[in-house]
């Protein structure tokens, strides 16, 4: 494309049926204890 550059595709709605295994780290166990920062957590399946 000439006018638009996509730097990330549709990542949220892929594998919906496989979502929610719950094996990933709890966000407050990493480095936030007073604010909720979820989107920087890793998926255990990745």
């Amino acid at each position, binding site marked *: *494309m*000439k*006018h*638009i*550059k*996509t*730097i*990330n*595709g*549709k*990542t*949220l*709605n892929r*594998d*919906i049926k*496989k*979502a*929610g*295994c*719950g*094996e*990933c*780290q*709890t*966000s*407050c*166990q*990493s*480095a*936030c*204890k*007073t*604010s*909720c*920062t*979820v*989107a*920087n*957590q*890793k*998926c*255990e399946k*990745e």
Partner: protein
Amino acid sequence: MRVLTGCPGKLVIMIHAYSMYGTNLVLDVSSGAVHVFDDTAFRVLKCFGQDGRLEEEKISKLREEFPEREIREAVDEIRTLISEGLLFSGDIYEEHLPQWTRNTVVKALCLHIAHDCNLRCKYCFAGTGEYLGERSLMSLEVGMRAIDFLIENSGNRRNLEVDFFGGEPLMNFDVVKGIVHYARTRERDCKKNFRFTITTNVLLLDKDKRDFINEHMDNVVLSIDGRKEVNDAMRQRLDGTGCYDRILPLAKTMVEERGHENYYVRGTFTRNNLDFGEDVLHLADEGFEQISVEPVVASADSGLDIREEDIPRACAEYKRLAKIYAERRASGRWFNFFHFMLDLEGGPCIAKRLRGCGSGTEYLAVTPEGDIYPCHQFVGQPRFLLGSVFKGFSGNPEREEFCNSNVYEKPECRACWAKYYCSGGCAANAWKFNRDIKKPYRVGCELEKKRIECALWIKAKEAR
């Protein structure tokens, strides 16, 4: 900055479009797609309505500024993105929510190893370590029972997490060791994998403790606020002296011995240092590569709380930091700022993004006496006492409130473009400021949104 929402066919459509340092960014909220638009396409985008349809009367005005050919190219490209589900996509997740909220199990405990502390940090949400109660230390018996409770309530979850927290957990380190050894003896038979973390103020971090932590802990969080004068104004010993000169070299040694991996230095900023970017950079200059510096959560009477009038300055500081951060990373002076981290390709699944941190459900805090609370920030508040590791859950209906909490249950979150990144925000903050775990803390929301904007801009810079 522009947010569009619409709901043709009942699906909510939302995009977030903003410019930062001359870069036009467009987030398609529901799909997670992120685009960089040139100026022509960015203006053309504004001619599309909330339902993703082009409004011809708006586009005709653009012809006075841009060549017809450029406009048509931009329109075609936008329509291509729409047809591919990368722009103006609908929110399809709510119908899936029930499958992700049933059968909730416990997978993480924050163990309050010590309700006591050898510092008297002026912003501490735990009082001076005692959390609205009396000073106390967790016994090995309580700690072992907490491990049993976690195993018993974890269902089929294999990975279980235990964070050793306080107060200051190094004041009761023999119990930390005992709990780790006990958990290791149980994990094979129970087919579990324990991951341990510890959050410490560093003061007592001697060789013996460092060796044990490095051998057994998956992550260590080392508290330091940044510049000496900033740190020492807040983080003081009982005699009022600052701790910076003691903890900085110890933290460096710890990080060196861990091979510079699996750690964070973590600080807190208050309204007294809204130039907190300097503290982040100071920690980077001291050689730390994994850095977290968070806004304080404090009451108005503390004089330290971030107020509505502080939001513009704090947001400007995040923006300033983002620019320096990107420049440093590009020039070989790489470091990671926890609050600019964003894994666009991987990252958590949508189920986690809808439900957030899991406080009160997957994640619980345990006091030295074995009492259970939704998270460390609720400890000591009788309303939120959920049970004990000895007797199990008490049936307190408050737990149901946490189980039912998700971004769709919070009107402000439902309408917010950032909901899949903060996942509804911190329940403890919501309660502290609004007395409702489903009404998010506005100051925290505004800062979080700015951090996400900065993080996306950094991604765009690094994608070039």
